[in-house]
């Protein structure tokens, strides 16, 4: 079962994603975004993996969230990788430091291109059971 839901949007695509804490929320959002972009093939064609350290600072949590997703899209394009693992060394409301693992594009079937995460109708909120975010991507 998918760890995120699709939000209907005429031209673009949105997701609703949850996490028990902020780290899980940011991780799940990143993995959901790459799940929209590509589907892992059953057989690996290349064992290549690259670990990348990502550091971001932002003025507030919402900007940190959008900047995080856009930084991953940008790195994915430059490095020609799909990010499949995420772990955080640090994450607070203004900054994060994460280690992400990029897998070779050839191990995936490409589904669609996401140009960017947007601020349109962006929501991040803390609930009783953890955190929930809604974000719309430009596709």
């Amino acid at each position, binding site marked *: 079962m998918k760890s995120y839901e699709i939000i209907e949007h*005429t*031209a673009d695509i949105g997701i609703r994603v949850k996490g028990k804490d902020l780290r899980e929320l940011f991780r799940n959002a990143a993995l959901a975004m790459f799940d929209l972009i*590509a589907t892992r093939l059953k057989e690996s064609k290349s064992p290549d993996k690259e670990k990348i350290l990502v550091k971001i600072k932002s*003025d507030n949590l919402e900007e940190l969230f959008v900047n995080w997703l856009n930084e991953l899209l940008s790195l994915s394009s430059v490095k020609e990788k799909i990010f499949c693992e995420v772990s955080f060394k640090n994450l607070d409301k203004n900054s994060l430091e994460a280690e992400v693992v990029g897998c070779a594009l050839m191990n995936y079937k490409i589904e669609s291109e996401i140009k*960017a995460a*947007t*601020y349109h109708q962006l929501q991040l909120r803390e609930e009783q059971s953890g955190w929930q975010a809604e974000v719309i991507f430009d596709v």
Partner: protein
Amino acid sequence: MSNFWQGPIEKIDDFHWRIPKTYKPGMRVPGIIIADEKLLKDIRHDKAAEQVANVAFLPGIVGASLAMPDIHWGYGFSIGGVAATDVEAGGVISPGGVGFDINCGVRMLKTNFQYEEVKDRIKDLVYALFSGIPSGLGSKGDIRVSTREEKEIFLKGSKWAVQKGFGIEEDLECTEENGAIQGADPGAVSDRAYERGKAQSGTLGSGNHFVEVQVIDQLYDRDCCDQFGLNLGQITVMIHSGSRGLGYQVCDDYTRSMIRCLEKYKIDVPDRQLACAPVNSTEGSAYLSAMRCAANYAWANRQCLMHLTRGVFEKVFSMSWQKIGMSLIYDVAHNIAKIEKHKVGGIEKKLCVHRKGATRAFGPGHPALPQKYSKTGQPVIIPGDMGRNSYLLVGTEKAMEETFGSTCHGAGRLKSRSAALKSIRLDDLLKKLEAKGIVVKASGRGTIIEEAPEVYKDVNDVVDVVHKVGISKRVCRMRPLGVIKG
């Protein structure tokens, strides 16, 4: 959850609908939607009209926040929106009013072929185009450039490509801004954007970008057709692409910086994706300089794509593209912000015109037009969906008066991508297209479904409105024969 928009829309006449300034405190001008009753019904089915109202908050906006009949829900701005701000009166520029795909646009080429001559070769041609033109997510081409060359592309646009041998001087004349808008500053582009742009020149990208082989199936203005050298049954080609990852990065970089400007310049907008800064501020002018680099990159990209297309035709038909008569009719941007002069209340003003999913449509005699189009008005290219039609129109004086020289840009989406994936089966769709004689090749299976004709409004309805309103004029209509998609 229904997204039906319940807000106020007042009828002005059969084709003009007003969202009153009083709808939301903070609107500086009303919203005006150009549509007929049928299209307006579709428009109310998502939040596009709310976005038209939100754009009316932009400082310095003049006239109205305008929406073309192909308007649909975007992020921040609606797609199909036009907003002009008064540069000398604190008017702002917003990266969201241009979008991530800076200078996404379309160009149209003609050929000397008649449909009857090539109808049996369309499949070969489409397959050859698919293998000859890099497409799909992150596609990288054979045209790789160094940082120094990228700077040249940012400044010279299409001219860079022509100097590399990817086209001829005449192509530049037939491109909006001659393929290079002035005022680009390569220093305003981030290192990451440079990196993303290096390998993507001459690549199509994915989503709704395409190369399509078409045939002219209806002539509307015979004089114009004669001037353009277009006849019934003639084969034409349309190319739709933009600035690729480079443009996305420029938009992202500057949206970040402009969110800070909201506080700095005390700007109140209802959506952070409308983040903006005065055109005359440091941040505004930096964005404008970087956006122009990305716009020029996109023109160079479409020039490269046209070069590759000409090459494929040469191979398939074993003759030179010149002999095939593959000359460029015109190339237009439909995601861009331009500094232009327009009359507001009878007084000429320097405006920043945002066209987000809208096409420039300058009328006859405008100084920005090349001599050959001075009498006809600017060619306006309107791609439809891959199952119905596309159009060639010309700009009019009415557009200068009413819409800051702008018109629609396409059919406009009606259904979401996820709704398409749920309701359309690929096999059925391909059979339907095949029955119409349309060959489709795409990198992703999902792309074909997401771009199915039924997810779009009927472009014939959209063009009918802009023609009747007079903000552009029909010249001829094409129908698709073969299409490659990312």
